[in-house]
């Protein structure tokens, strides 16, 4: 049974955990995106690079998160309880997800438009920033949504090594047989995931106002 009085008495612990959970989930999305854009660009430009990058990214993604949390301190020289381990592990997953997204998103930009930009006198770097990247946003944001939701859920696994944001309430609840604590952890994680997914949809609409405008005029 859910003990509703548990929530107000534990608010002091819930709110910081929520904040920590978000930081642990979203910081890797940002880091992962920054790393994935150049890699995806390379994968889109060169066939051999894509043949290496995309499968390697896929392979990284198959490593169980718990294994990565435990292995990383050995690789990075960090303490086992260092939150950096979680951030790095989730960044790796984000990169693994987004390399393919970025490559696909860039491939979806119409070749005619890129050719027109070149013919107008764009140099490659400016063309990438002002034409190719904006036009790849719809596909890119779809990839970002998957990465964000995945990360919000994966952070809770960190609870097994003691750094898991809201995941703590799940493991702790199991230990004590406290159903309410488990329930609180699960529900808050799901709500967070839904809220940030919706937020990304909204941001996506705002930054791509040209998408979905039909022909209203003749």
């Amino acid at each position: 049974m859910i003990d509703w009085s548990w929530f107000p008495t534990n608010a002091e612990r819930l709110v910081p955990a929520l904040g920590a959970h978000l930081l642990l989930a979203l910081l890797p999305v940002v880091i992962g995106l920054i790393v994935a854009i150049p890699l995806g660009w390379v994968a889109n430009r060169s066939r051999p690079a894509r043949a290496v990058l995309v499968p390697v990214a896929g392979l990284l993604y198959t490593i169980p998160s718990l294994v990565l949390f435990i292995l990383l301190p050995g690789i990075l020289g960090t303490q086992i309880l260092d939150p950096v381990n979680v951030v790095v592990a989730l960044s790796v997953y984000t990169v693994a997800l987004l390399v393919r997204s970025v490559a696909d998103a860039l491939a979806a930009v119409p070749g005619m438009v890129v050719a027109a930009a070149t013919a107008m006198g764009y140099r490659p770097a400016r063309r990438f920033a002002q034409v190719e990247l904006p036009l790849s946003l719809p596909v890119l944001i779809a990839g970002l949504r998957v990465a964000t939701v995945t990360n919000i859920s994966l952070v809770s696994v960190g609870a097994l090594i003691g750094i898991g944001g809201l995941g703590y309430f799940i493991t702790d609840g199991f230990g004590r047989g406290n159903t309410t604590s488990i329930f609180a952890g699960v529900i808050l994680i799901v709500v967070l995931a839904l809220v940030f997914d919706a937020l990304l949809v909204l941001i996506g609409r705002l930054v791509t106002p040209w998408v979905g405008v039909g022909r209203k005029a003749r």
Partner: protein
Amino acid sequence: MIEFRGVTKRFPDGTVAVDALDLAVEDGKITVFVGPSGCGKTTSLRMINRMVELTGGTILIDGSDIMAGDAAQLRRGIGYVIQQSGLFPHRSILDNVATVPLLLGWGKRKARERATELMELVGLSPEMAQRYPAQLSGGQQQRVGVARALAADPPILLMDEPFSAVDPVVRENLQDELLRLQSELGKTIVFVTHDIDEAVKLGDKVAVFRTGGLLAQYDEPGHLLARPADDFVDGFVGRDRGYRGLGFLSANGLPVGELSTVGSGATGDQVREAARDGWTLVVSDAGHPLGWVQVGQALSGPVDTDALIAGGSLYDTEADSLRGALDAALSSPSGLGVAVDASGAVVGSVRAADVLAALATARRDEAAA
């Protein structure tokens, strides 16, 4: 002037798209590259702004080698209109047009002012400025493409099958519009098309390419129709070239004969009186042709303007070629072409036989010259 000197494009797989092309594009004129697919016309165009890098020979613009400088810099000085417009879908129409001025560092305000002028020049209403390309029709998108290419006022304009994706009526409008713009701007235009009619209509000079990147004939359109260099050009120029060639012969000196006309209120008796060979033309008070009446028609009472027999095309004595005159004669139900002045008022008639006689004279004069 754009000069091709022994220009060759060989692709890495060994195919030769353009083979030792020598050609000079004249300043301030429209030069059309035309030919079947795989003839190298598009490759030749794209080598001018280095969208395709040549593998042999040189291209000179006003005497300087295009390979000498920076490619992006070169391209900013050459307007480019691509197939299906190639507009930036994520930018407003205004910002699309302002692209090259912004690349040249004009500053946002000046670039947008210039873009607004250009939109007006190509006949786009200002209310479209803030729309996205997807909200425009194909014809409007092409106009935006032309405006974008002209925004920084480049002396050269490259047009790569710009009107191929729009329907025939819109295409004709866009062609007329281009000719109007060109009469104001006098740009050096290189235009690629696979449509010989478009080539003949737009070109001051037409370069016909044959498969393998070889130049088959480079000539004025009238000469192309009258004297194709070989069987390939003859076949490519197509049917009716004799008739279409009349479009390049002036109708000056073509005799304009008398034409019997009646006012729209004429009675049956007046019509019978006026008719020649059984026909008379009914004209409005301003002298504009309304249609024909045949004497055999039941004529009790005044002429019913709704029951007139529709006339053919009109021959504008001040603007039309022999083609316009012949078509007027052939399309008229009475066999007499209606000749009008610039205001559209009837000035007389034209006969097919007279057009053919004028053609014979033109040929004799040309042979003598």
